[in-house]
C-alpha cells in the first residue's frame, strides 16, 4: 500500500502501521484538518474533505469529553456495515497528530488499537525537533501568480 506524505519522517511509521493493522484507508493529519500523509485515497482533494471531517469529529469528541469528565476521550470508533473507523491522537514533539483509520474484515478494532499504540510510539520517536526560524517561502512578488491563478479559477482571464 502506497503512503503519500507531506512530511517525510512520518512515512515509515505510517507505512508500518498500515501494513501491520491491514487498514483499507489511513490518514495522518494536524488537528486543524491539514493532511500530513495518506494511504489508500484516490484523489488529493477528497483527502482534504476527509481530513476536515476527521478534525471536526475529533475536536467535537474532545470537547465533549472535557465537559463530561474533564479530559478528552482517547479514541473514537464507528462501526459501519462493511467497514469500521478508528480515530485517535498521537502526541509528538512536533505537536499532536490525528490518525483516521478505516478497516474491514481483514482486521479488527483490537488489532488496530494495538498497532496504533505501537505506531504512536514510533511516530514520537521519529519526530524531528520543531524548526526554529521559518524562512520566507514565496517570492516577494507572488501577487502576479496569485492574481493570474485566481482569474483563471473564476474564469476572468
Amino acid at each position: 500500500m502506497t503512503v503519500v506524505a507531506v512530511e517525510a519522517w512520518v512515512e515509515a511509521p505510517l507505512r508500518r502501521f498500515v501494513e501491520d493493522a491491514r487498514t483499507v484507508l489511513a490518514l495522518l493529519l494536524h488537528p486543524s484538518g491539514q493532511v500530513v500523509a495518506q494511504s489508500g485515497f484516490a484523489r488529493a482533494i477528497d483527502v482534504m474533505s476527509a481530513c476536515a471531517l476527521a478534525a471536526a469529529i475529533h475536536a467535537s469528541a474532545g470537547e465533549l469529553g472535557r465537559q463530561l469528565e474533564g479530559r478528552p476521550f482517547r479514541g473514537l470508533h464507528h462501526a459501519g456495515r462493511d467497514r469500521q473507523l478508528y480515530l485517535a491522537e498521537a502526541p509528538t514533539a512536533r505537536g499532536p497528530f490525528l490518525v483516521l483509520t478505516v478497516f474491514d474484515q481483514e482486521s479488527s478494532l483490537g488489532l488496530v488499537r494495538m498497532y496504533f499504540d505501537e505506531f504512536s510510539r514510533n511516530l514520537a520517536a521519529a519526530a524531528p525537533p520543531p524548526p526554529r526560524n521559518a524562512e520566507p517561502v514565496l517570492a516577494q512578488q507572488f501577487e502576479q501568480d496569485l492574481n493570474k491563478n485566481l482569474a483563471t479559477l473564476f474564469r476572468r482571464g
Partner: protein
Amino acid sequence: MSLVNYATREITCKIVYYGPGRSGKTTNLHYIYGQVPDDRKGKMVSLATQTDRTLFFDFLPLDLGTISGFTTKFQLYTVPGQVYYQTTRKLVLQGADGVVFVADSQARQLEENIESFQDLHANLAEQGIDARAVPLVIQYNKQDLPKDLILTTAELNDALNFRGVPEFGADALHGPGVFETLRSISELVLKRLSSPAK
C-alpha cells in the same frame, strides 16, 4: 499555521469565513463552488440542519494552482453564526491562517455584527493568538438590498473596521465582491509566507 512542504513544493492554508447568523458565509462558499472548475475544487462539505442553517461548518477545498513554484491549496471553512454555537465556532477557528468577516449590511443586524466581531476577537485571544497578527478582511454583504434597509460601507466601516483592514461591499448571492474578498484574503495570507519570520 500554513503547512509548507519543501520536498513536494506544496502549501496548504486554512481560511475561515466568520460572522453572525445568516450574514452570507455559506452563500460565499456556494458562489465560489459554482464558479470554480471541477478539477480545481473538491467536494463541498456542508454540515447543516434541516433548514439549511450551518450546524458545524461548511468546507470547500480549492486548488489555487502554482504560486512562486509552490502548488497552493486553500481550505475554506465557514462557522455557524447562531449565538449558541459558540463552542463549535471556537473549534473551527483553530489553526486558521486568515479570516474573512462577513457582516450583514442590514441596519437591524448591526448589533449582531458587532457582537460577532467581538466574539471572533475573544476566541482568538482564548487560543493565545494576537488578533492583530491574523490576516483579516471584512465583507459587507447584502449591499444589493434596498438602500433604506442597509447601512453604507462607510457607516459599517465606522462601526466595525477599527483595524483598517481591507473591506469589500458584496452581494454574495449573485457574486459581486466574492472574488475580490477571496483575492484579498489570499494575498494577505500568502504575504506572510513571503516575508522573513519575525
